């Protein structure tokens, strides 16, 4: 009897094996924990992961309106499969006929202009060709046409443009790389993909500018914010609380109000320039509607994001450390550089990361004070999205920006170590 009890599995009070019972209890606990976090998970999924996912998809889907291009032009796509644009010859008669057939269906569904708009993103002129041809092509009787090529050329001679057909062929799949090509300042020609002229490469320029200005702004906030945070952490609580309000007050003020205030201060007939002239200088300074204006306004706006993490880290450093260093013979500089500063790096890391990532995606301030040479990539993304309606390109640019920030985050993690970042 005693043997069986030691060899068999241990039993819980209700007779089930203990292991099983424990596993069940743990599972129940996990489910409960999951249920508690479910609202957050669902929220993140619906408001964050799904929109980003759908944005990623937009940048590669080859759609015109709501439908895929090959679904609107099935016959044309099939006929163009064999055709090689590099020969310099127009597609076959069958392709022209297929175009008339597909075009008539597209016209019926009011899709022909969307199609034209889609191709026009790559080759200017195609939008008006599709729009103008609409009615005339729709009236053709396909059964009676003997020479489809002549018939289409009769409608508009641009149907004989080799580049137009090459664009259609290049975009006949369900997925396309053309938005990414545009985002990297490349273009498709009959000979293949080529980079644009150097002075036409706007996205590279904007991307680099956005990163450079964001880095500069991060540096400026650090240079200004570090002493302020130290002062706040060092002063007695009553005084430091009062000063803290001064830091937070602009933080609570509307972004637009702060940006407009800078406009009034910095403009050529503004307060600062008036003082400048009153001091006896003769030339007014250009402080706004350029990169300088963006750096000044954004440094001010993002300053609290640097000061707050710095402050909370500095608050945890006992003042006795500095005193100990000095009593052991360190000069002020050595004590700061070798004792105090190394302990504040987690705060610097957190502040810099916060400010930089916020700055990279900033939109309204560069739009209002940036002028021509202070705009960011986000302004261009917005323009593509809302004015030109080119959601594919906007999505591609957004995705690239996301990838760049993730890459920087990775490099940052390797260099500084993300574990060393502290918000308090």
């Amino acid at each position, binding site marked *: 009897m005693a043997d069986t009890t030691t060899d068999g599995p241990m039993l819980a009070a209700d007779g089930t094996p203990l292991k099983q019972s424990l596993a069940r209890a743990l599972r129940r606990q996990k489910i409960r924990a999951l249920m508690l976090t479910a609202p957050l998970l669902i929220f993140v999924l*619906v*408001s964050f992961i*799904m*929109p980003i996912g*759908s944005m990623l998809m937009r940048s590669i889907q080859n759609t015109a*309106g*709501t439908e895929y291009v090959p679904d609107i032009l099935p016959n044309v796509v099939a006929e163009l499969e064999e055709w090689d644009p590099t020969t310099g010859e127009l597609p076959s008669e069958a392709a022209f006929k297929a175009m008339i057939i597909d075009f008539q269906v597209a016209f019926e*569904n*009011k899709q*022909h*202009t*969307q199609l034209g708009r889609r191709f*026009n*993103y790559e080759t*200017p*002129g*195609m*939008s*008006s060709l599709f*729009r103008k041809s*609409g009615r005339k092509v729709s009236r053709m009787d396909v059964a009676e046409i003997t020479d489809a090529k002549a018939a289409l050329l009769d409608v508009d001679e641009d149907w004989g443009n080799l580049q137009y057909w090459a664009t259609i062929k290049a975009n006949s799949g369900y997925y396309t790389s053309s938005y990414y090509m545009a985002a990297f300042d490349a273009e498709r020609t009959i000979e293949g993909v080529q980079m644009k002229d150097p*002075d*036409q*490469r*706007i996205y590279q*320029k*904007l991307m680099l500018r956005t990163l450079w200005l964001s880095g500069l702004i991060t540096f400026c906030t650090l240079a200004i914010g570090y002493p302020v945070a130290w002062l706040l952490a060092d002063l007695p609580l009553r005084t430091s609380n009062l000063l803290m309000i001064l830091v937070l007050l602009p933080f609570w003020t509307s972004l637009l109000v702060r940006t407009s205030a800078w406009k009034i201060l910095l*403009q*050529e*007939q*503004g307060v600062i320039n008036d003082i400048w002239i009153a001091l006896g200088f003769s030339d007014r300074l250009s402080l706004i*509607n350029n990169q300088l204006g963006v750096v000044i306004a954004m440094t001010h706006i993002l300053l609290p994001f640097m000061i707050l993490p710095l402050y909370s880290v500095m608050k945890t450093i006992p003042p006795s450390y500095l005193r100990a260093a000095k009593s052991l013979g360190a000069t002020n500089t050595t004590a700061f550089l070798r004792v105090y500063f190394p302990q504040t790096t987690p705060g610097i890391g957190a502040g810099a990361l916060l400010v930089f990532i916020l700055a990279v995606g900033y939109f309204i301030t560069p*739009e209002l004070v940036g*002028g*021509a*040479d202070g705009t960011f990539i986000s302004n*261009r993304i917005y323009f593509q*999205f*809302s*004015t*030109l*309606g*080119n959601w594919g390109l906007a999505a591609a640019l957004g995705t690239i920006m996301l990838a760049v920030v993730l890459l920087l985050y990775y490099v940052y993690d390797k260099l500084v170590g993300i574990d060393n970042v502290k918000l308090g």
Partner: protein
Amino acid sequence: MKLTKMMLTTTALTVAAGAAFAEGHGSMADSMTVVSWGGAYQNSQVKAYVEPYVEMNEGLEVVTDESSAEAVTKLRAMSEAGNITWDVVDVVAADAMRLCDEGLALEIDPDTMLADAPDGTKASEDFGDLIVSECFIPQIVYSTTFGYRTDLLDTAPTSVCDIFDTETFPGKRALEKRPIGNMEWALICDGVAIEDVYDTLETEEGVQRAFAKLDTIKDDVVWWSAGAETPQLLADGEVTIGSTYNGRLFSAIAEQGQPIGMLWDWQMFDLDGWIIPAGLPADREARALDFVKFATDTQRLADQAKYISYGPARASSAPLVGQHAELGIEMAPHMPTDPNNAQNTFLFNYDWWASYRDDLDAQYQAWLLQ
């Protein structure tokens, strides 16, 4: 995505409830969303059209929205979501053409759906050439033109090419941050005949020529993207000459008494009017059509000119344009269409820009970045 859809659904439910209520009261919906551009312009529409219309139709609720600048993209999104919340939308002619081509706007037969002139002239004839699309119900003619500070400039500019003369007319200029208008003016001032402007712009050399002309003043330009910026820049003395919509300049001059003068030379005409989204429920569509018929009759169009200096789109309205509703000044001399102002004009070429806008805009931005 989901979230917006959910929000749209809730709006739809509210609208549907309103529609169900309307069915008890006849065949027209009891609420209507009118979309326009906001500011002084939308105010003029509310005073001239909406208020008298509501007075005639007791119990009608009118919701106003100021999203016209994004009308095309928003209507596309609404149509994709299968849920259109707008009833009447004020758009520029180019947008009306795009919406019509894409099947997002209702086609209008002016002679049966719009009011005849008081003397019996058919609507199609009264509006004439201004019906640029089957879906477009013209409302006003406006222009993009220049204003200058009368007190800061020694001589008053008389030609649009004075913009490029920074010696005689010192100070900064405000120009729009997009190619439309600027490219045409640059070419005109570089000696291209008006009828050749668009042919020239179609070539690479023509584009470079326009940029070269604009290069001469590039450092003296403040770029604007909203029409309200120029009057503000002029008032602050930030710029001495600047382009914007003529109505904005009118309100700075006549209503705020700013020392600003009008430079009408080579003003760029454009049209603005209503469209009705396609695919509305029958009761809402009936309401929208009824409103639009009322709002674009001869008297109403003339009434709007009491509040803002945009020219009525009907020939029969012109003689009825009277005095400003509050200031009591004659409005006719402030209209872009007044013969004294309209000596040199050009009509913004919608069709051409529809094709070349994406491309030229990219080149323009690249030029700005250089």
